[in-house]
């Protein structure tokens, strides 16, 4: 992100454009790549991620589907088992629940139950996350459902560079991937950055240290990367040095980067936007306790959404979601334990 500041304005790309470039480049390189979803062809997607792809690659490869998430994912599974690489768009990741059975029982298990006979190169991607007034059904982060279903990769980029590199890596991985795009970041100007002109990927399963620090590690992903960075600024003013880790991929989880940071800071706050109970932050805390308990000087703390849906009105939404202030408070509690 520091490179972004130096790049000329015109060359900078937003998160959404980065995603579209990833699809475009992979479609160009792989004639077996397809995408299926609601309103993705004629319209170019509700948010415009697939804009221009149908006219470039045709209706056979950019397929407008009826409002049938289960059929979209099921057909993606079938096409993938017969040699295609399929990107299935959920118009909002909230609607993925309508295709849940096809994901967890059909797609996630195919490689396992066939003892490696059938690969599943399918990426189910869609806009996710709160903070934009989307209310109950346009704000969800439901990644924990899929982290709990063996056989699925779960990915969540927070920058344009990662959005492109992780989507390309996901399409080449050969395993089914649930890909969480943060819709509040789609067109956010502050995070635009220049992308490499040549082909690149961001390998799955590698976290990124977004800010180095020595007193407390803030582990997070998605939109909360930015809340954590702001929290680290605020903590610095109070003489506390925060390190921010962006997980980028939840499954597989890069434990090494977390433990390396803990060896330095000995304090940890884990932040996720989803509800608290059985959320991914809980899993991160459990892994730390399993394998790195000796590194801790204080009990790990989670900052999560309350165990509620995401409400509509701004004060209600802010009340239930993690915020910079809540992260700062948690970090101070941990370092002062």
């Amino acid at each position, binding site marked *: 992100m520091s490179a972004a500041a130096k790049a000329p304005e015109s060359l900078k790309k937003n998160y959404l454009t980065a995603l579209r470039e990833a699809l475009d480049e992979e479609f160009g390189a792989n004639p077996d790549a*397809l995408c299926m979803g609601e309103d993705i062809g004629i319209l170019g997607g509700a948010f415009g991620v697939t804009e221009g792809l149908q006219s470039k690659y045709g209706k*056979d490869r950019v*397929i407008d*589907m*009826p409002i*049938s998430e*289960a*059929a979209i*994912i*099921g*057909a*993606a*599974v*079938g*096409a*993938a*088992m*017969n*040699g*295609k690489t*399929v990107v299935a768009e959920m118009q909002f990741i909230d609607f993925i629940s309508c295709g849940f*059975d*096809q994901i967890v*029982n*059909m797609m996630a*298990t*195919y*490689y*396992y*139950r*066939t*003892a*490696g*006979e*059938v*690969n599943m190169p399918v990426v189910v991607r869609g806009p996710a996350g709160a903070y934009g007034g989307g209310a109950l059904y346009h704000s969800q982060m439901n990644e924990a459902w899929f982290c709990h279903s*063996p*056989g699925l*990769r779960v990915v969540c980029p927070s920058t344009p560079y990662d959005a492109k590199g992780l989507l390309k890596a996901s399409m080449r*991985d*050969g*395993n089914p991937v649930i890909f969480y795009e943060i819709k509040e970041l789609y067109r956010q100007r502050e995070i635009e950055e220049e992308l490499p002109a040549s082909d690149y990927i961001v390998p799955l399963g590698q976290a990124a240290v977004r800010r180095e620090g020595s007193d407390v590690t803030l582990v997070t992903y998605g939109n909360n990367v930015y809340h954590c960075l702001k929290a680290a600024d605020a903590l610095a003013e109070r003489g506390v040095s925060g390190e921010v880790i962006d997980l980028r991929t939840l499954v597989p989880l890069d434990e090494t980067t977390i433990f390396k940071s803990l060896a330095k800071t000995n304090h940890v706050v884990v932040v996720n936007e989803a509800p608290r109970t059985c959320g991914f932050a809980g899993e991160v805390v459990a892994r730390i306790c399993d394998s790195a308990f000796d590194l801790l000087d204080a009990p790990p703390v989670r900052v999560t959404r309350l165990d509620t849906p995401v409400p509509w009105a701004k004060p209600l939404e802010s009340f239930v979601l993690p915020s910079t202030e809540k992260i700062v408070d948690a970090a101070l509690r941990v370092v002062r334990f």
Partner: protein
Amino acid sequence: MKSAMKPHPTPGRASEQLTKEDCLEMFRQLYLARYFDVRLIKEKKRGRLRGTLYSSHNQEAIIVGSIFGLRPTDWISPVHRDMPMFFMKDMRAGWRNPDRMGMSIEEVCAQVWCKSGSPGRARDNWSHIGSLEKRIIHSTSMLAGTIPVAAGVVLADRLNGGDAVVLTFNGEGSTAQGIFHEAINYAAIHKLPVITVVENNQWAYGTPVQLEVPTEDVADRAKGYGIPGYIADGQDVFDVYDKVMEAVEYARSGKGPSIVECKTFRAYGHGDHDDDRAAKYRDPHEVEEGRLRDPLAICRRRLIEKSYLTADDAIRFMAEGKSSSEATTEDFPPEVVAYLDEGIRFALASPEPPAEEGGMWVFKESE
């Protein structure tokens, strides 16, 4: 059952093109499917098998009649009551032909015996196997859940310039699933060659068809998608063949999907665990009437009418009407018994999968 009792005469039937050898082969395949069922239930009662058996007894005409006319390159997506289908696909190419587009009896028996010789290395039970190479879609317990998968498979096939069709098999109960609607709706819009065969055996586990389907015929569901809904007498292998071949021709010519309802009757319980209870929750008269039209007997009658079976040959092996405990090996042609014996011998000799395989193949590792 009312409709199943009606004759379904179709002028210009595909089955009229079948040779004598074809017809006799279909009859042998009916015996084979029946013997597979009878024999496995005997084995289970001796305590030799793990898990539940889902009997295809009385529904064999659907298994044989549906797939007999397929091309080797066509796909099938069987459901739990279609176990013989896995080794009967493309069986016309020779029962023991290793290159035919179906599984071997050895592979299927290894699956039933839960052994590592199974195509899925015994990772999931009973009918939950398949083969990309042989073009058999792996079944799961989520009923109707493979219909969209089948649609995706033939979509990919069509994009690759192929003209394969897919037959998906489902009970009448699974037509109540939301995915049944989503998948056929999608296939109809995109005119994908997906043929949904509905084995209407009148009972979805412990629930009668009247509580699963609001119309007289399941085939009526086709109207909502603007696609053909065929009805076959599921006890008559030639009628099933005719209706499915009509659907196959329709699909292969690019016109799209269809539903073929085969009227039949589930002779025993949902699975072997349910046989005793099924004898109580179903009216004995209904069961008696449902078992009356045995597909073996109906096929035999047709072959006698055509003079393909005469004199002693016509009555040499009389398995019809016999339960698994009543039937013996004497009731089946020796080549049928021998074929299954070979499969079982292989299964018994096949080792159990090593324990650590339980943790393998969750993810494909990058190359």
